[in-house]
């Protein structure tokens, strides 16, 4: 029986696409002042992979590049969504980035605290717990 490698190729592209997207969006949004440049680059890369996916005769390469195309186009929109997470305080702001510094000054919900840097404890945190934690870090 011949093994069909397309599933593994698609799995690899999906995992890498999601992982790289996840890490890249958070890191680039944190460091970049003008989000238009990374947004355009992501979009252009996504479209590039999309065109390649349509033109290549290889089914495996078409599958992988099609998945990269869609995830990159999605990620190009994630920069703005990540900025929104910074505004509402669900992702930590970087005070050394002037765009984030402005958000920190204008939005009382924004914070430099990374709320997710902890292990689950099996119990709900009270508002007092969270406030004490936030003050401790800031």
């Amino acid at each position: 029986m011949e093994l069909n490698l397309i599933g593994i190729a698609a799995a690899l592209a999906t995992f890498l696409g999601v992982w790289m997207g996840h890490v890249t969006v958070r890191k680039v949004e944190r460091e970049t002042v003008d989000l238009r440049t990374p947004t355009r680059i992501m979009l252009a890369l996504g479209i590039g992979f999309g065109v390649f996916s349509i033109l290549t005769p290889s089914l495996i390469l078409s599958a992988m590049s099609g998945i990269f195309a869609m995830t990159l186009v999605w990620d190009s929109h994630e920069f703005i969504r990540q900025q929104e997470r910074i505004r509402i305080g669900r992702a930590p702001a970087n005070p050394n980035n002037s765009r984030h510094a402005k958000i920190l000054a204008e939005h009382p919900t924004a914070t430099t605290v990374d709320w997710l840097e902890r292990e689950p404890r099996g119990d709900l945190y009270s508002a007092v717990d969270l406030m004490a934690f936030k003050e401790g870090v800031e």
Partner: protein
Amino acid sequence: MNWFGLGLGFATLFVIGLGFVWVIRGERYFGYLWWPYVLGAGILFIFGSLFISNYWVSALLGVFGASLIWGSTELKEQAVRSEIGWYPFREKKILPPFARFIKKWKAPSL
């Protein structure tokens, strides 16, 4: 012109979107300690895709398997998100077999 890849990419977006739903719901009712089982299921799906000759079915099994592996690494963070009140928290969880041992392992988070 070959539309297989873009069609698959589009389907992948839905599978990833579905991932958000089952990670949130799954963590709420079952807890994050199921992560090794979810990881194992993902690997099995991908391994199984090798033996499916239909391209669409094999590729979608692979995509689904990869999203299970990714989801297994998201469960721990999701547990924290619900404990700090961003998502509804449910104290009673349906724990997996060997939960006592799994608790001692470091849950993956990417």
